[in-house]
């Protein structure tokens, strides 16, 4: 058993004492360090390898879950140099992994550009964390995910060396694209220090439509209709419960369309007509202030005023073939229950369900979700669960899982990077 005191003494030989702090309460480590450059991270990794210390790359902590076995040292990049290298005429930016998404977007927006990913949860989410967890939200309808926008990474590998993959250009097939491997790897293959992105222009203007339905099937009817029309849709989500911007018992659809002032007008008319064609309780075009609030609630950035479950214990994210998602959800017995919340990306086949309840009362429901999703060749992740739950966080292992284990062994032979925190105990 290695004590925090022992770790601190060792760490002081590598890093200044004022960059070593006790961990935040929710982070399962003994101590946190804040290196100031890649060289220090490299030294930390070499030390960890030698002394069999486990490291947890840490961003804002948004996607670090309680319940994993305690690790030794969290390495936070939040106090490294925060200089963005932005070439606006190339629509490319290189960003330190420890910068918050909010800071980066604020900087890029002054040039009318953005990283077109959704910021999850609180404003502390870092770029490195978002890429490592491959977070996505309602914008993926148009923009896809991090794998569509990351063009270069720098990572400290298990040898403590800084390695580059990719280049700061929008098209590149030189060598293996290891960026794809690091995206979504949850820090289990190394410590990302810098990430370069293709950028997207911020649309000249956007408009959000909010509509409200009695049933999921009615809400889906609108999104089905829209898929067959021509509209510049930026974001789309179906929500219920804690993710709704209003009455939590109804199903809501939020849609944002974009364009120039003139180009938007006919689209607004078109989308308005589509709303009139479905069984909608009511719909409206929201004000700019409301729109911001609604999307923040839908993306977990703010709590809804009318949130029904005060403390959801379970959040289950699932991905299914697009055609399977609606019938699957309609068959779910919890659909009608008041305390279940839903966040659905209908054009991606992705749904997150929030449920409140003790494990004994929800086990059957959760097991039936896992069983059905497995049959349909989808997958499930428990985004939130009680720390002492018996459920596996990723209960469905893909057929290629043995190859993932081999990759982990090859890229992290001493198992120092966030061991046991990823799928199947990787």
């Amino acid at each position, binding site marked *: 058993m290695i004590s925090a005191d022992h770790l601190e003494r060792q760490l002081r030989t590598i890093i200044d004492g004022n960059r070593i702090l006790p961990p935040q309460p929710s982070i399962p480590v003994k101590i946190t360090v804040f290196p100031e450059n890649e060289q220090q991270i490299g030294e930390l990794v070499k030390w960890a390898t030698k002394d069999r210390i486990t490291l947890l790359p840490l961003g804002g902590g948004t996607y670090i879950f309680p319940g994993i076995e305690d690790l030794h040292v969290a390495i936070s990049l939040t106090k490294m140099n925060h200089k963005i290298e932005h*070439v606006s*005429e*190339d*629509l*490319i930016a290189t960003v330190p992994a420890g910068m918050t998404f909010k800071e980066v977007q604020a900087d890029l927006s002054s040039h*009318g*550009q953005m990283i077109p990913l959704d910021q999850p949860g609180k404003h502390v989410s870092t770029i490195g964390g978002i890429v490592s967890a491959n977070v996505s939200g309602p914008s*993926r309808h148009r923009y*896809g*995910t991090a*794998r*569509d926008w990351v063009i270069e990474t720098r990572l400290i*590998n298990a*040898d403590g060396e800084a*390695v*580059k*993959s*990719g*280049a*700061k*250009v929008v*098209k*590149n*097939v*030189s*060598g*293996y*694209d290891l960026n*794809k*491997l690091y995206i*979504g*790897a949850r820090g289990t*293959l190394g410590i990302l220090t810098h990430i370069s992105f293709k950028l997207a*222009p911020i649309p000249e203007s956007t408009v959000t439509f909010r509509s409200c339905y009695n049933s999921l099937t009615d809400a889906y009817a609108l999104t089905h209709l829209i898929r067959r029309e*021509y*509209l*510049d849709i930026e974001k789309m989500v179906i929500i219920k419960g804690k993710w709704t911007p209003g009455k939590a018992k109804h199903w809501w659809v939020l849609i944002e369309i974009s*364009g120039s002032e003139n180009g938007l007008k*006919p689209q607004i008319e078109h989308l308005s007509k589509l709303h009139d064609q479905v069984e909608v309780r009511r719909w409206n075009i929201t004000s700019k202030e409301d729109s911001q609030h609604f999307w923040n609630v839908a993306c977990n950035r703010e709590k809804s005023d009318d949130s029904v479950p005060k403390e959801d214990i379970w959040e289950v994210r699932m*991905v299914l*073939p*697009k*055609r399977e998602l609606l019938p699957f959800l309609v068959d779910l017995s919890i659909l009608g229950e008041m305390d279940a919340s839903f966040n659905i990306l209908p054009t991606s086949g992705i749904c997150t369900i929030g449920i409140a309840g003790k494990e004994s009362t929800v086990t059957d429901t959760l097991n039936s979700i896992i069983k059905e999703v497995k049959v349909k*060749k*989808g997958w499930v*992740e428990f985004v939130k669960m009680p720390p002492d739950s018996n459920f596996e966080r*990723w209960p*469905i*292992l*893909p*057929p290629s*899982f043995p*190859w*993932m284990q*081999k*990759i982990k062994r*090859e890229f992290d032979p001493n198992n120092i990077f966030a061991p046991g925190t990823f*799928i*199947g105990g*990787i």
Partner: protein
Amino acid sequence: MAIDSILISKLHSLLGENRVITHLDELIVFECDGLTLHKQMPDAVVLPKTTEEVSEIIKLCQTNHTPFLARGSGTGLSGGAIAAEGGVIIQMSLMNQILKIDYEDEIAVVQPGVINLNLTNEASPDGYHFAPDPSSQKACSIGGNVAENAGGPHTLKYGVTANHVLGLTVVMPSGDIVELGGKIEEFTGYDLVGVFVGSEGTLGITTEITVKLTRNPEGVKTFLATYNTINDASNTVSKIIESGIIPAAMELIDNLIIQAIESHLKAGFPTKADAILLIEIDGVKSTLTEEAKRIESICLSQNAVNFQEAETMEERDLLWRGRKEAIGALGKVTPAFYTNDGVIPRSKLPEILEFDLEIGKKYGLEVAHICHAGDGNIHPIILYNPDNKNEIEHAIKISEAILKKCIELGGALTGEHGIGTEKLSSLGIMYSDNDQNQMLKLRKVFNPTGLLNPGKIFPEGAKCGESRINQTINKGGWI
């Protein structure tokens, strides 16, 4: 290397004699791909029809310590589909079925030998297409597109092959058959589909591919902007991107290529222009008119002497036919040419084009340009006489200098053709030994014996404890 007669006999037993090629006069077709400078004969070519047959072939090759690789249509331009160390080519052309098209899920499941354009032709009556559109799309296979992470003119807006592949059935170099990804938008765990796409057939052999289908846009507008200097044309590219417009495609073609195209099919390109930009925008119709005006204004501000829109679909098709057949048309103006593929940040386009012309002059050879300019992906084409050894050497020197310059400008060695055998020796100018070693870890996981497609991507094999893979191609073979 001489192939083991027992292996040939076992391949005959597995596939029948008709699907095993060993005669020299038939093998010669497989001695090179689109990169004719690099040639190496395989010892045998086999034509499987099923995933299981591929698996059995691989197991036989492994047992006999014989190199093997998959090949699609052989249209690649970096030597990726040649048997660099001899051995067996697994030719995928008999696995050419579109297995499923599902418009509700917006996916298609295809075998690797399906021709790229055939999938789009199949889906287009229902309003969909397969977005990656390399210029060879009439001939190249989707399996090849996956191996090389193929691009094309419209990747500017729609992305490269990696952005359109959801799942793969792969026969590993061990012979194991594994499903990677699936028929859904996202998978858990490491993104193995992501790293397999573009791995140049060195990690496994793909036998089934699930791709995304892309909905055809409501409206399309295609423009031809004419310039008296190539510098003005290349400056326009950055200005358009910086303005926040991402066209569907933005191609730059210089005078030499224009001349070749016009002598080939009269596509309507102005033969006196120093360069033209072929620009296409697509999307919701109501947004296009305004965008078109903005593009026209930027082109004129950058000294375009003419800006015209293709008025009919026939005109548009002819312009694109001219673009896509440009390389073939070059055969009318030169006995041989060497097509290069480099990438630079878009704003460095004027600088690299000027450099290319200068370096061409230095070595006494002409360099023509056809570029996916919006992506910063350049294709300098070096014209040379294949009977003149001096010119061959100069063509190679020019190519190396251009690539080096691309890296100096912050770019990459290849945007869509791959490293193959062509750029083995250049990989080190882009990636350090540590960078390459990190990549080689991946190869070691999937291809530990190194028998799958050896002599590709990495200059030498003696890294990460791997056995050294000899590069058998030498300059004497570059004709």
